[in-house]
């Protein structure tokens, strides 16, 4: 079984659970506000604390993504619009979502660095949908997402959508990120 960069959970199998819905241009300051960038993701307790602050920068009118006092989010999938993760190169952004328990984002498109960081860390699957699913799903809806089959099913309606193929990056995420992938492929020596 492969593990992600933090060595905490496998990136395999079907993802099922509650969805949190966002719109267009969700920026990295909303995903993890800069005041929490003093936390270092490679220190395990600070990785976990980043998770408690995931999406803390959303407008206060939005439902809490991580309930006060909780360590994890009740939402495992984020459904969003265009240009998810725009702004900073802070890897803390996909890491905070992953540490909060998010396993996939389904957006119409991604900002380049967020997408790359999600792949490089193996924290979550950044999947793309040709359809504007953020207009269909409601926060709290149950959904089932199969990264291998690249489909998402909206439980309340039973409707299913095919997502865009991940292509070359799918195996990288499944291997837990760029280092796990490079080692599995023999491109890098085993950890010393």
């Amino acid at each position, binding site marked *: 079984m492969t593990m992600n*960069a933090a060595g905490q959970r496998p990136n395999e199998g079907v993802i099922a659970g509650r969805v949190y819905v966002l719109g267009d*241009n969700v*920026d990295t*300051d*909303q995903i993890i*506000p*800069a*005041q929490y*960038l*003093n*936390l*270092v*993701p*490679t*220190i395990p307790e600070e990785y976990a604390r980043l998770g408690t602050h995931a999406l803390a*920068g959303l*407008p*206060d009118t939005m439902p809490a993504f991580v309930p006060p006092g909780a360590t994890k989010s009740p939402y495992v999938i984020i459904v969003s619009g*265009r*240009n998810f993760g*725009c*702004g*900073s*190169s*802070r*890897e*803390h952004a996909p890491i905070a979502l992953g540490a909060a328990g998010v396993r996939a984002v389904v957006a119409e*498109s991604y*900002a*380049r*660095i967020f997408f*790359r*960081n999600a792949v*490089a*860390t193996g924290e979550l699957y950044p999947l793309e949908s040709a359809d504007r699913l953020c207009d269909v799903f409601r926060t709290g809806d149950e959904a089932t997402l199969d990264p291998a089959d690249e489909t998402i099913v909206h439980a309340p309606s039973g409707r299913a959508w095919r997502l865009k193929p991940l292509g*070359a990056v799918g195996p990288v995420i499944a291997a837990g*990120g*760029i*280092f796990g992938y*490079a080692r599995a492929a023999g491109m*890098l020596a085993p*950890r*010393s």
Partner: protein
Amino acid sequence: MGATLTEKILARAAGRTTVKPGENIWINVDVLLTHDVCGPGTIGVFHREFGRDAGVWDPGKVVIIPDHYIFTADEKAHRNVDTLRAFAREQNLPHYYDVDSPRYQGVCHVALPQRGHVRPGEVIVGTDSHTCTHGAFGAFATGVGNTDAGFVMGTGKLLVKVPETMRFRLRGSPPPGVTAKDIVLRIIGDIGVDGATYCAMEFCGEAVAALNMDERMTVCNMAIEAGAKNGIMEPDATTLAYVRARTSAPFEPLCADRDAPAAADAEVDVSALEPLVAEPHLPSSVAPARERGGVKIDRVYIGSCTGGKTTDFIMAARVLKGRRVAVTTFLVPATVEVAESLMTETVDGKSLVEIFAEAGCRDIAPPSCAACLGGPPDTFGRAAGSETIVSTTNRNFIGRMGSKRASIYLASPLTAAASAVAGRITDPRELPG
């Protein structure tokens, strides 16, 4: 078929004669830049993956410039700088610019070229999205996360997809009141915050040639606000004069082929532009400053890698000389060199520091990123409530400067200074004499 400047640099860095947009290639990195916010995590990845006793691939190519959370009581921020210091010592890094030392610089994207680390034709990778600033010098420069940076630290290599090039030809000369900030805000307003996603934004034409290096950096700095992988400009005599004054290291500039095809070609007539603001909460929400005169403001912030360079403060001083600010005005020079220039540069025979003091600005802060990105609660200039701010920085996302209730309008130093005087958003051309 010719190649664009970005393609030429990437081909050389990959040891190839040509590359095509969309290809994934391994390139050799000339400079890896990191700072106090992403450096400790990058070092953590490096040690985890390459071993506790591993050495960086080339100590002379790693540049560490702490700049984000410097003047704060935050314990973790201090711990993070300690991590950088210990790593620099352990690895014998010659280019570590330590806090509380004569080597301290300030904002990494202004310090990197000032200290001679930016050279035309080279590849610069940084753990900060505004690394694209250095394309102003004819380099390929892009931002990455900690994991990719940790990979570079151990191997000197980065896997990149060759970007398509969007070419922006800037024609004419800007009218009074129009600056590089207005040019780049206009472009972002036109193409949107994802208008250049995955692309290289290449800026060329007579209006680029007429800009000094500070102003060219302002344009390339904000390429990321349109989603670009990099911003880039061909090196010319202005570039070479700046670089040669700051490094004796050899370098080989590259230029685009004249017949290089681009994915998109756009012309911008800068003579038709006017002073702009980007309204909350996106850099693409652009409007003429003269149409937003009804917006009363609470403070003005002049600083950051975008708007805290010497040229930015000279522009602000031209407006503020002989006038008084009506709102709290924060001045944060990007680097020590910029801060020193405020004492030596003059407008009509008066130093910038005198002009700012007489105008009633807040005392000039020590160089750092400060409130551009909020930061710890005790950060200088950080928004704490529902302030309306005119800022020379690069992002006006909700909460960006520390408070979700604050409204941030991005503007040039001229527009910011004029707005400080009037206490409302003001086109600098409309300020009464």
